């Protein structure tokens, strides 16, 4: 079926990659952007979308979203989450390798790609396992994984057995120009911790994860990145000190990027005070100072992306005493609204906020998305910047209703989402 020829008129087009922020028309044909501003010669319109009063931005890219398929379809499926993503303006989801089975063979990533294509909503890209079955000891067949379409490698939340194995894994990944995605955590220091080690963990008697569990890991990882020259990305940093360490390494020219999870920009250890399992996160919510440090890192660009760290759960996963619950929140529905809230609260300008969920993550993934340049895939999010609504878990699109933002006022409502030039979501 031929792709529709679409004209989007009347909206404020914000495309940070091209430093565009103006009322401009956008023309889409054959799944690609064919013009910005003036219509190309002889352009005929199949569909005209009126974006008056709306914002037009590149489709969002989420660097860390667990889809739970294969392996945990009782929590969510590729079908449910790709549709939820499209409804939230997200057109590309990056899925970590800790599925079941693990993404350590071409077959698994091919299956995920195939399922996502069948759904036809958001696009899914995946990270291959750094070690076989994430065992932390034996290198995966990274070349084969890359051939099969993995856009990077990661050991997800699982630690590597030693710094030697880490060094070898980095070297091997660098051989094939693969980016290594890191979860900065010293496993011995975080041990069985389930929240930030500080005044709240002391009060609640919960085993804590010290700040040093992250900073020690970042220091070690940076040393090995500099030694091996591998391109690396720190996912979901939580501490101010770690952000400063990464900033320094970037200043020194190390090939390293970093992101932050949206909840760490709003919530802190204090939110855990009632033992609320919706505030159980790994890596954990930290102090107010850390939250402010993360916002600072976002403004300065050390943190070039905001991710949802989407972890949908079935209700039972959160219905236990705090330490026994599963960590993580379902984050797709609130990624754009909470990013826009950063603008409303004057932490970021709109183009910078948009950059952190579009061209910023695109650059991390080294993929040609997250921009509205002529010739690029027409991934577009059109939203009403003035619309406000209250987050009701029951009306979330994700199969996982676990959110710490229940009842929060959300800003911005997605009207249309285009992925590769197809309208994959339309409100009303």
């Amino acid at each position, binding site marked *: 079926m031929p792709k529709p020829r679409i004209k989007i008129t009347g909206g404020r087009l914000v495309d940070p990659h091209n430093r565009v922020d103006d009322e401009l028309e956008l023309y889409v044909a054959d799944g690609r952007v064919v013009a910005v501003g003036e219509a190309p010669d002889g352009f005929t319109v199949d569909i005209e979308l009126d974006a008056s009063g709306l914002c037009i931005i590149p489709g969002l890219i989420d660097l860390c979203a667990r889809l739970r398929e294969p392996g945990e379809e009782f929590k969510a499926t590729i079908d449910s989450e790709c549709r939820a993503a499209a409804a939230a303006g997200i057109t590309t989801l990056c899925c970590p390798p800790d599925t079941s089975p693990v993404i350590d063979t071409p077959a698994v990533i091919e299956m995920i790609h195939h399922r996502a294509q069948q759904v036809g909503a958001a696009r899914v890209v995946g990270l291959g396992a750094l070690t076989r079955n994430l065992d932390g000891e034996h290198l995966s067949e990274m070349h084969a994984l890359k051939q099969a379409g993995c856009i990077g490698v990661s050991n997800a939340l699982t630690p590597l057995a030693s710094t030697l194995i880490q060094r070898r894994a980095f070297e091997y990944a660098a051989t094939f120009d693969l980016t290594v995605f890191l979860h900065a955590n010293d496993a011995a220091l975080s041990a069985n911790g389930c929240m930030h080690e500080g005044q709240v963990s002391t009060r*609640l008697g919960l085993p804590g994860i010290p700040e040093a569990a992250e900073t020690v890991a970042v220091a070690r990882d940076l040393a090995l990145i500099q030694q091996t020259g591998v391109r690396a990305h720190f996912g979901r940093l939580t501490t101010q000190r770690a952000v400063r360490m990464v900033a320094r390494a970037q200043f020194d020219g190390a090939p390293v990027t970093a992101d932050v999870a949206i909840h760490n920009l709003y919530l802190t250890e204090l939110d855990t005070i009632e033992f609320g399992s919706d505030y159980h996160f790994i890596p954990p919510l930290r102090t107010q100072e850390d939250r402010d440090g993360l916002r600072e890192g976002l403004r300065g660009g050390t943190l070039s992306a905001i991710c949802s760290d989407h972890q949908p759960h079935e209700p039972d996963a959160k219905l236990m005493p705090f330490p026994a619950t599963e960590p993580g929140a379902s984050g797709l529905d609130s990624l754009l609204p909470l990013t826009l809230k950063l603008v409303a609260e004057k932490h970021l300008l709109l183009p910078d906020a948009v950059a952190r969920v579009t061209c910023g993550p695109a650059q991390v993934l080294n993929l040609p998305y997250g921009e509205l340049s002529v010739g690029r895939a027409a991934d577009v999010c059109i939203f009403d910047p003035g619309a406000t609504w209250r987050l009701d878990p029951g009306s979330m699109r994700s199969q996982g209703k676990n959110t710490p933002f229940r009842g929060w006022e959300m800003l911005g409502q997605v009207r249309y989402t285009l992925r590769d030039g197809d309208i994959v979501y339309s409100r009303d």
Partner: protein
Amino acid sequence: MSSTNLQTRDDGRLRHFLSTEGLSYGLLTEILDTAESFAGVAEQSVKKVPLLRGRTIVNLFFEASTRTRTTFELAAKRLSADVLNININASATVKGETLLDTLRNLEAMHVDMFVVRHSDSGTAHFIARHVQPHVSVINAGDGRHAHPTQAMLDMFTIRREKGADFGRLRVAIVGDIAHSRVARSQIHALNLLNTGEVRIIAPRTLIPSHVESLGVQVFHDLREGLRDADVVIMLRLQNERMEGALLPSEHEYYQLYGLTEEKLSFARPDAIVMHPGPVNRGVEIDSQVADGKRSVILHQVTNGIAIRMAVMSMAIQQKQAQEKHA
């Protein structure tokens, strides 16, 4: 903190007893006064009062305990309640049945109160959030978080020995603060009762981060910390909780933090010595001190029954009043 809301009813009376934190001076004093009225019951030849006749109390223990469970059981029986003891090995819970399932099944048997012990911090709060409106929950110890009846029996013991004015008291808590739910509950209770000075004494490995925020002064030297103390509370050194390199040896611990007559001489001459038990003689405390004339360790055990009777009757009696209203 809204554990206050969870623990009290709209009129401010006790509904659940989960933590000493967040309760009022008035409520803590009421618990102590009520316990005082029950203390005489044990001395009668018929050691029973009919306050909770026809009520069902379930001791739901997911963690091994003999003494705490026994005193709860005895307290409930002296109040004439029916008692059911359920011990569940948390690691061996039947596959598929969650804690909430267990709870719902027991609730279906028309239980009035759960006394809960569990190795996870927050379990009593979790259960209190999910029980039906007529059911009360007493925390008998959750992880490292709280053990409020132990703390209250300690307050009761202090009050009986030292009088009701805590403002002139210096209380020193010695030992493994980091892993101790007893210490946390004691610290909150002591501060709510306006204790003059609350000190903790331990090496840094046994002190949790930001502990000053609980309202304590930290000492690493036992003699210095005991200076002019009125009350010395020794904590059990729980070897089974020691996961890593927290201490070099029992020997060095005893040398530095074990309570001997010599070290106790730094406290006030009339200082009392307490211990929540079970005592590790020769590890945290010398036998001479544990059995000495300043030790009130066995009084603590006796007082534990009165305190538990007080808390149980306060949480359930309120309900009778409500039923009369209805």
